[in-house]
């Protein structure tokens, strides 16, 4: 009765009919055809069974056979409840109906019923209709499973990218953070020393000339803590020796402890004699100790400023790259967008890979999903770096013509073999060893360019020259 080429599926079917004879007949026919079933006498019972099977993980129904005229809850109401319930709305519903009830059937089809089955029941017809519904449900279930899997893989690609970024960023943030932390820890002991030096100075009861001299020196201290005198190691060593002799001659114990900061402040013996001319060998050591302590404090503060500024800078770079706290669609300057991406990838681009930027100057801003475009550049540049094996050149170009902005990303790596070029944008296609790529990087880039921005992405590749060309309409959104 069924065409032998048609696949036959077995399903779990809910029979909803108030008439016992109908339920018995349908049950019998379904049983003969190898399906399993449950029965309900009205819509209310049917919904209870459907919801229970969904909630408890007991065999889920594949199809509902639904009578129209029933007490308690009729077919229309049942159908509308099924279609309203997100967990049930995809379940195919086949209406059971006498042939003279076409109007009611049409109404049900309009409400979302999939098909109808005329009474009296014809086993062959029932089989064909059930089979058609089961086939399409099976396909839909497969499609859903596939989409779900794809969503998960895309998520894992995102996480992998995030992981790489996090590692790079952690590395970048670590140095300034460690420096700032180290300096701030040294502040308290350094302050204590300065405090003691202050007290020593106060106890000397200096003249107003001497106090003015120290005030002048403090200005120098602040300036030199930010811009210390830059000299080579040999010169430094010479200067320090000279200073050590001078300091010793003026009664300082442990003179070597002060020479480094004095050199940084560009204070030679001659300059010291000039600045501290009003000081004798009694109070000169106290002034030098104070000078050194003050310099240490300002230098530590400067290190903290440097470290925390660098951290802020890195965070700004990340914010620019991710378009954090900004609307998803922006008027994007692709040159800026490329630079932001380079800044974030700085960690990967350090060793052996040189980047040449060949941007056109006045490029129109394009309407785009900013952070998604950065993802496109990131994925292509990352692939280029991988292809170069950490040595080579990447050239970034931008240009525009006729309402289109084009970005080229070129590398001088080994190239993509011609036979795999047509497949590089396919999802899950990768040439990297297992565990090193999801095969989604270029597919994501393709989706973002083509589907999200109505743009184009092509690749030209020969050994020694691989060029990705991304063209985006200026007003494509």
């Amino acid at each position, binding site marked *: 009765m069924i065409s032998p080429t048609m696949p036959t599926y077995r399903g779990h079917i809910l029979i909803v009919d*108030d*008439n*016992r*004879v*109908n339920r*018995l*007949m349908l049950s*019998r*026919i379904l049983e*003969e055809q190898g399906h399993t079933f449950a029965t309900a006498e009205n819509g209310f019972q049917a919904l209870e069974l459907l919801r229970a099977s969904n909630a408890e993980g007991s065999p889920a129904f594949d199809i509902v056979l639904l009578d129209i*005229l*029933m*007490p308690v809850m009729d077919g229309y109401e049942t159908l509308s409840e099924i279609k309203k319930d997100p967990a049930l709305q995809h379940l195919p519903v086949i209406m059971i109906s*006498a042939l*003279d009830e076409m109007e009611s059937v049409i109404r049900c089809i309009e409400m979302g019923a999939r098909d109808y089955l005329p*009474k*009296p*029941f*014809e*086993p062959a017809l029932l089989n064909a209709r059930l089979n058609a519904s089961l086939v399409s449900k099976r396909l839909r279930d497969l499609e859903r499973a596939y989409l779900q899997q794809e969503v998960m893989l895309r998520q894992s690609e995102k996480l992998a990218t995030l992981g790489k970024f996090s590692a790079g960023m952690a590395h970048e943030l670590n140095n300034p953070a460690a420096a700032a932390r180290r300096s701030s820890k040294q502040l308290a002991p350094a302050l204590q020393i300065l405090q003691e030096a202050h007290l020593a100075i106060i106890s000397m009861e200096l003249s107003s000339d001497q106090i003015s001299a120290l005030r002048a020196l403090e200005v120098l201290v602040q300036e030199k803590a930010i811009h210390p005198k830059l000299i080579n190691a040999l010169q430094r060593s010479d200067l320090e020796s000279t200073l050590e002799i001078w300091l010793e001659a003026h009664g300082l114990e442990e003179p070597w402890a002060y020479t480094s900061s004095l050199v940084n402040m560009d204070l030679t013996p001659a300059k010291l004699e000039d600045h501290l001319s009003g000081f004798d060998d009694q109070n000169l050591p106290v002034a030098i100790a104070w000078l050194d302590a003050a310099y240490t404090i300002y230098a530590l503060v400067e290190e903290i400023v440097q470290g925390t500024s660098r951290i802020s800078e890195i965070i700004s770079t990340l914010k620019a790259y991710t378009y954090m706290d900004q609307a998803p669609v922006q008027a994007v300057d692709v040159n800026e967008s490329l630079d932001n991406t380079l800044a974030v990838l700085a960690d990967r681009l350090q060793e052996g890979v040189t980047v040449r930027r060949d941007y056109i100057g006045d490029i129109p801003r394009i309407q785009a999903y900013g952070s998604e475009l950065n993802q496109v550049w990131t994925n292509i540049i990352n692939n280029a770096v991988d292809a170069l094996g950490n040595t080579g050149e990447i050239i970034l170009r931008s240009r525009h013509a006729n309402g289109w902005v084009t970005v080229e990303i070129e590398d001088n790596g080994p190239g993509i073999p011609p036979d795999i070029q047509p497949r590089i944008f396919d999802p899950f296609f990768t040439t990297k060893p297992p565990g090193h790529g999801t095969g989604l990087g270029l597919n994501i880039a393709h989706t973002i360019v083509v589907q999200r921005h109505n743009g184009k992405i092509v690749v030209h590749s020969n050994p020694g020259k691989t060029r990705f060309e991304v063209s985006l309409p200026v007003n494509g959104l």
Partner: protein
Amino acid sequence: MADQEIIDPTGLSHLLDSIGGDEAFLDELIEAYLEDTPTLLSEMRQALSSMDSESFRRAAHSLKSTSANFGAMRLSKMSGELEEIGKAGALEGAPVKLAQMENEYQKVKDALESIRSS
């Protein structure tokens, strides 16, 4: 209508075909029908006295399709007419027709009982 048979043998053999010729199951179906039909008929009587045209219609509809299953075409047709009356909400002419239908059901019942025991 008068010359129609109480049970159309074609209809009945069609039913038997659709259940794979299983006569024991046919007996089961007949039994269910004979058990449930009096309930439906009394539901129709009740609906009539309470002027509940919707219940009247539903019971008539149910009888129409099951009766047709067994080849009881005249009874099915009478049920169909009463279903229409219930649908229109004009139950005035219904009592006479319902009495005729009850009468017809007795004949169908006798016929089906003899099929079942044979």
